């Protein structure tokens, strides 16, 4: 059996491991346009900061590919998929029996004038982006980051270690708009400001001239380097070439199989089901990619890794030691949700509840045992079955005695 | 210094026995020779013999051998005897002066039958009646001590080495089908004639070697049944235990021996159900009769003997058979000196009684 995986990220590498677990003999080929062993994408901000050196980037042990007998085709991009093979940019064809598309995302480039071909414009998604950026940025560089999402802010934090002038421009009324509510976002931007990063919200960059970034409101911000981090879109170009169905992302069944039974897809390029709001959308999240990779790999190799009933937004991220966690619905759009907010100094906890079920939460500077809340959201646990006020503190103690016994006494062992 | 009955005296010993299975009487010279060989197991402070079948002419009578320290004791005892028995014949037991035998008390014997009227009114059988009388004399008449009370048998004992005792009583002139002998090594007494062995009650005689560690448990047990352990000796209490179990409780000699030297619980546990129940019942019921500590005993009775070693076989006891004779002795050499080449020779096993009975 010949397995080919396009993409060497969280989904691709997890799939490779899962395939090898089920099929000790088949050949596995991983194709990546990056010349590196798989690494944690989110680590690139730490790379810039210098807390993680390049040799510490790899996600797996150095002998991983060898141990799992995985053939690597690195530094070459897959161009198209046709009749049982992947065509590389070199023209070489790689034949497959089962193919996984784990091509992840591409940065979204907004229509800002002065971007195209400009060497002072960077994106912030790959290690190569980070290497280039780190090289370009000097202590006195003036950096403007377009986009105050997770990537933009992590880029800002990373760059802050090597550069004194950083401005983040975010179109929404708050940073982290995609994952957090206004109150939470403001705490984060206040914290960033305190740590020397300027945050401009409700605005956007319209033009960049290698000296200034001109904002939508006409304001000009001194800028030598512009980092574009407004978001990503699924990289579905190859999938299109294979003729498989695509909606917001690649469409798969619950086993990550696409409309072509020999082709699977996993990770950020796939359309997922958000169990917290029932929507189908792209959820570019690390654990999601890992899980989908494992499921895809397992099924490709004839295994039966049980499918997830869906996934949900889940983020934990730190900015200058301020931890921010979000899960599920954090900013409900209608008033059918109840929200409970607890604040104390920088600490901010918000719980979004509907129909006796926790649908999402925000925890700023309150990470203690947060996973228990995540489990409540995922399991749709009726809150009325819990004792005590979980918004104050959550523990297994809030469960019934029988449930506690199961959880601590091995009762959940199958 | 305190004598037997006033204090408990540990002692080491030699024992020996010879029996003719056809009940043919033979002279005492043989047993004297056997016990004499084990002189170093005695220290001159006690020796004695029991002989069965020596008084055929008075075999219906109890032969009471009595030591008297003085005339007053004799007067009181004879008064008691006359009240309780019909004396058929009495007299001094013949002795001859022997080197090593000193300070002899007066030694008398009486062939007696229980007084019919008294016996009937006592409601006891003649054995029990006689036993009680013996115990009464021994515990209530100072200076009188009945040291033999069986029928057609007799004990002969004294302070001295056993071969000297044999010479003193001229035992070579007696003929018996069963002889037992004892040489004593008491640790701390000048020796008292009554304390020499064998110890007898009715037809029971016991020669014993060893010091039992269960003494007080056994003593307090038998005393519940009307016995009185005046001598505080192991031999005395073992005699009473046999008397209690066999004569009063009706156990066979073998079973009685299995009570005194009961099988280990491990062994009982491994027995077939029926046997197990039997031995469990015996041990549970007669736990006070279990004898502990090292001993070898030879119990003589009317028509046979039982040789018994302690459960752990802590004492030597050899046995041999040669044609119609069976021999026992603390040491093999004491057998070979009278029977150089026996047909069989073996070491008596711990807790396993050897019962030898005359035929018919």
């Amino acid at each position, binding site marked *: 059996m010949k397995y080919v995986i396009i993409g060497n990220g969280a989904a691709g590498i997890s799939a490779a491991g899962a395939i090898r677990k089920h099929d000790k003999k088949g050949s596995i080929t991983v194709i990546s346009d990056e010349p590196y062993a798989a690494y944690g994408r989110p680590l690139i901000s730490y790379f810039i900061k210098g807390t993680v050196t390049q040799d510490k980037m790899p996600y797996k042990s150095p002998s991983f590919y060898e141990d799992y007998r995985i053939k690597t085709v690195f530094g070459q991009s897959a161009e198209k998929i046709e009749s049982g093979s992947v065509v590389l940019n070199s023209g070489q064809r790689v034949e497959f029996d089962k193919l996984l598309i784990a091509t992840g995302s591409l940065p979204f480039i907004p229509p800002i004038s002065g971007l195209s071909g400009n060497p002072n414009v960077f994106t912030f998604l790959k290690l190569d982006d980070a290497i280039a950026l780190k090289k370009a940025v000097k202590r006195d560089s003036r950096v403007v980051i377009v986009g105050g999402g997770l990537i933009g802010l992590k880029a800002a934090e990373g760059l802050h270690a090597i550069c004194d002038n950083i401005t983040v421009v975010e179109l929404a009324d708050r940073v982290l708009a995609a994952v957090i509510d206004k109150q939470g976002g403001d705490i984060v931007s206040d914290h960033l400001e305190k740590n020397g990063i300027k945050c401009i919200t409700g605005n956007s960059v319209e033009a960049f001239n290698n000296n200034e970034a001109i904002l939508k409101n006409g304001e000009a911000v001194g800028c030598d380097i512009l980092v574009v981090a407004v978001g990503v879109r699924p990289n579905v170009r190859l999938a299109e070439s294979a003729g498989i169905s695509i909606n917001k992302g690649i469409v798969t069944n619950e086993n990550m199989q696409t409309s072509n039974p020999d082709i699977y897809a996993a990770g950020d390029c796939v359309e997922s089901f958000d169990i917290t709001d029932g929507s189908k959308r792209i959820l570019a999240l690390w654990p999601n990619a890992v899980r989908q990779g494992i499921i895809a790999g397992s099924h490709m190799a004839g295994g039966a890794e049980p499918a997830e009933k869906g996934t949900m937004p889940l983020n934990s991220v730190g900015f200058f030691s301020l931890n921010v966690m979000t899960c599920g619905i954090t900013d409900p759009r209608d008033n059918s949700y109840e929200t409970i907010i607890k604040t104390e100094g920088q600490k901010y906890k918000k719980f979004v509840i509907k129909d006796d079920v926790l649908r999402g939460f925000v925890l700023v500077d309150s990470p203690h045992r947060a996973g228990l809340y995540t489990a409540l959201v995922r399991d749709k646990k009726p809150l009325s079955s819990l004792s005590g006020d979980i918004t104050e503190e959550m523990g297994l103690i809030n469960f019934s005695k029988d449930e506690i016994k199961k959880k601590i006494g091995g009762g959940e062992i199958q | 210094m305190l004598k037997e009955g006033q204090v*408990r005296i*540990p*002692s*080491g010993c030699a024992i020996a026995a010879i029996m003719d299975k056809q009940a043919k009487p033979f002279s005492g010279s043989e047993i004297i020779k056997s016990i004499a060989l084990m002189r170093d197991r005695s220290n001159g402070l006690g020796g004695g013999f029991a002989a069965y079948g020596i008084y055929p002419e008075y075999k219906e009578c109890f032969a009471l051998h009595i030591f008297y320290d003085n005339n007053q004791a004799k007067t009181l005892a004879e008064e008691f005897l006359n009240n309780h028995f019909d004396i058929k014949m009495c007299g001094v037991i013949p002795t001859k002066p022997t080197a090593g035998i000193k300070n002899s008390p007066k030694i008398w014997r009486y062939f007696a039958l229980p007084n019919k009227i008294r016996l009937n009114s006592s409601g006891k059988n003649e054995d029990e009646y006689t036993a009680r009388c013996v115990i009464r004399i021994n515990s209530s008449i100072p200076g009188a001590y009945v040291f033999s009370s069986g029928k057609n048998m007799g004990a002969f004992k004294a302070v001295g080495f056993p071969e000297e005792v044999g010479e003193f009583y001229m035992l070579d002139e007696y003929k018996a089908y069963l002889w037992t002998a004892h040489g004593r090594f008491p*640790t701390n007494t000048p020796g008292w004639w009554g304390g020499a062995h064998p110890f007898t009650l009715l037809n029971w005689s016991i020669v014993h070697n*060893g*010091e*039992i*560690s*269960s*003494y*007080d*448990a*056994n003593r*307090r*047990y038998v*005393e*519940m*049944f009307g016995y009185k352990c005046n001598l505080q000796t192991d031999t005395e209490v073992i005699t009473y235990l046999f008397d209690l179990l066999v004569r009063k*409780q*009706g*156990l*066979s000699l073998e*079973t009685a021996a299995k009570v005194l030297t*009961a099988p*280990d*619980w*491990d062994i009982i546990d491994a027995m077939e159900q*029926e046997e197990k*129940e*039997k031995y*469990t*019942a*015996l*041990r*549970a*019921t*007669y*736990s*006070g009769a*279990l*004898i*502990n*500590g*090292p001993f070898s005993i030879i119990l003589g009775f009317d028509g046979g003997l039982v040789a018994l070693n302690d*459960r*752990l076989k*802590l004492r030597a006891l050899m046995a041999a058979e040669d044609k119609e004779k069976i021999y026992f002795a603390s040491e093999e050499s004491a057998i070979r000196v009278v029977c150089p080449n026996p047909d069989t020779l073996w070491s008596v096993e711990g807790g396993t009684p050897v019962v030898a009975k005359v035929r018919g």
Partner: protein
Amino acid sequence: MNFLNPEFQIIRDKDRCIKCGACVRQCSYEVHVSDKDTGELYTNDINCVACHRCTSICPTRTLTVKKNESVYRESANWTSDYINQIFRQAETGGVLLSGMSNPQPYPIYWDKILLNASQVTNPSIDPLREPMETRTYIGAKPDKIEFDSNGKLKTKMPPQVKLEMPIMFSAMSFGSISLNAQKSLAAAAQQCGTLFNTGEGGLHEELMPYKDCAIVQVASGRFGVSKEYLDMGRIIEIKIGQGAKPGIGGHLPGEKINEDVSKTRMIPIGTDAISPAPHHDIYSIEDLRQLVYSLKEATNYQKPVSVKIAAVHNSAAIASGIARAGADIIVLDGFRGGTGAAPVRIRDNVGIPIELALAAVDERLRSESLRSKVSLIAAGSFRNSADVVKGIALGADAVYIASAALIAMGCHMCRQCHTGKCNWGIATQRSDLVKRLNPEIMSQRAANLLTAWNHEIKEMLGGMGINSIDSLRGNRLMLRGIGLSQKELDILGIKHAGE
């Protein structure tokens, strides 16, 4: 104003204290307090009962419990104990209660009796090489064993109970002690081939697996007594009296009667469980005989019936009567025996020592030729295996231990059983305290204690040249008194050392 002087003082070595707060959470008497704001730890010494839960649990051994250095102006007559007792009574107007055994300095005869060992004339026996038997059968024995002409056993043995060692766990009811404590004892008894005793509290359903080693007690309150209960026990014990409180009944306060206790005792939740002083159907010895035979009849003569009395002045005559009333087993409980709760005055002043009672009863039963027919159990503070050996040599078939078993399970003899706050989870029904006693651990500790004592008994037997406990029973020659008067020696039936 509190007149009482704290009895104890707690010293905390601040250099060692890691402020983990275990002491605070473990003390049911609220001696240790943690300051909410600073986290500093303080002590309320007045509450300390010296149970040593805190010193034992402290991971850095930070704590020392000392006698309070602050003293009353004491005299030999007005000791601080008596002064404190008066303060307490002046406050409450009530009878003083206490737990565990008589703490007064009466003579302890065990400590004035020495054991014998073999030298030269009689060899000692090496228990490692030779079988050393401690098995004991209790229950009435027949007058004699008879066989039929085929040599088959003819005598029908009265019900016998086998003990692999002559030590049993004395009566401690569920209620006076926790279920976990009782379970531990039951499991230890089962493991060691001996028995435990339900006390007057019924048999909790969780103890069913151990019913074959249960002595079920019938006491004056008749709590938990039913046909099923009687049928379940290995032995039925009629409790007339208890050594710690002869002449009075028992009282388990309503607070301790929770659902479980109520079910087991067959009384309503929250009601006081009162065991009357006398059995209201026993006003003389012939009434006892009727009860003994009612119980035998009820259980089809399958179980030995035991009668337990406190050791009192005329125990010997009473015991003789009990034997004649048909009891298979007589239990004598001496005045140093423990209790879950007793009036201090009674505990400290009523009854006699077990040693004297045992010696007198054994001698009396022998003089009446009854001893071989009935088993005799001694109780009332057997503290170690030597006490057991001495007890058996004085005449007991077996002994009951209770305090020693509880100590094995953590009891530190603080004598606060009556408060129900036992920090060791023994004498309490508070679930937070009961769970501190894990039967898995404590049954093993209790079993270890029995095993250890049994080993020691074998050692001592071997030294005496005895390889069966049967030959120790009543073997008073193995005992010598030391520092005892002739009268005491006479009662004990032993000679003085050197004789």
